[in-house]
């Protein structure tokens, strides 16, 4: 089962530290020394603010990923506990962007690359669970209110188990209220 990071609207205060953390983790610390327009600032999670809530939204690393199913060049695959995009294969056809019901994929230019007409290559961009980056998902680490949590298979399973036991207990209490 894939892992995923999810935001808790009750804790999130909409400050977007996670979005910068994500870019720093993927582009590396040298971005604090180079020209800010020389790399692509492409957070892989997106802050959503409505009257009711503020929370970042990112890829849920589905088990039957709709994006992987529609990719015509097989650029999307499972790697470890995450669903990742190989941006070398990707040609920006946006099928995955259309297929994803969460809007977790956007299109970003690849700095320094160029197409035949001189414009920058543009490819699909989504959360890769910081695969290959030490200390795990940066967004979870930098969030000041711990609104982001990494949900692993084990945690999800144990949570389900706990809920089922609780359900059993309540069923039991219906029969024997005093116990």
């Amino acid at each position, binding site marked *: 089962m894939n892992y995923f990071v999810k935001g808790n609207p009750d804790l999130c205060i909409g400050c977007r*530290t996670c979005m*910068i953390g994500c870019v720093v983790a993927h582009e590396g610390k040298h971005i604090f020394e180079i020209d*800010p327009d020389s790399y692509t600032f492409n957070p892989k999670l997106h802050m959503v603010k409505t009257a009711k809530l503020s929370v970042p939204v990112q890829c849920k690393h589905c088990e039957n990923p709709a994006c992987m199913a529609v990719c015509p060049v097989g650029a999307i695959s499972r790697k470890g506990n995450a669903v990742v995009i190989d941006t070398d294969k990707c040609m920006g056809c946006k099928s995955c962007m259309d297929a994803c019901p969460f809007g977790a994929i956007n299109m970003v230019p690849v700095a320094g690359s160029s197409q035949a007409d001189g414009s920058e290559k543009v490819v699909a961009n989504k959360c890769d669970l910081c695969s290959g980056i030490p200390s795990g998902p940066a967004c979870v680490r930098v969030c000041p209110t711990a609104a982001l949590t990494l949900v692993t298979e084990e945690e999800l399973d144990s949570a389900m188990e706990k809920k089922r036991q609780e359900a059993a207990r309540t069923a039991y209490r219906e029969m024997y209220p005093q116990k």
Partner: protein
Amino acid sequence: MALKQVQTTCPYCGAGCQIMFTVDADANKIVEAVPADGRTNAGTLCLKGHYGWDYLNDPQILTKRLRKPMIRKGGKKSPLEEVSWEEAISYVAAKLTEIKEKFGPDSIMGTGSARGAGNEANYLMQKFMRACIGTNNVDHCARI
């Protein structure tokens, strides 16, 4: 490469968060900033705390660091010319003294700074305005 750890207070909002910096003394540059266990921030930082320090290497995105004292010698609209500290200090001292004698101490206004300067600089500024210039005309942006 000699790395040293320095804990300091964030220069931005009033929460007074403590940040632990890793500094490369030889290259005289900051390597990393991580949250420290401060009384108010307890090991967390916001985006300005985490990522608000790389202005120090003067990327000139918005504007640039002032490096040398400058005076507009040709009057109001004339260009700024770089001068030595001695010249600048004496020029300012002379001008302020001249205006103080001509119009009195209350015709000079000074400001403190609620930002990076620190308490000691603010103390000296108000002491300078009160003791040296002789006026209480000192204020800062707490009011705006």
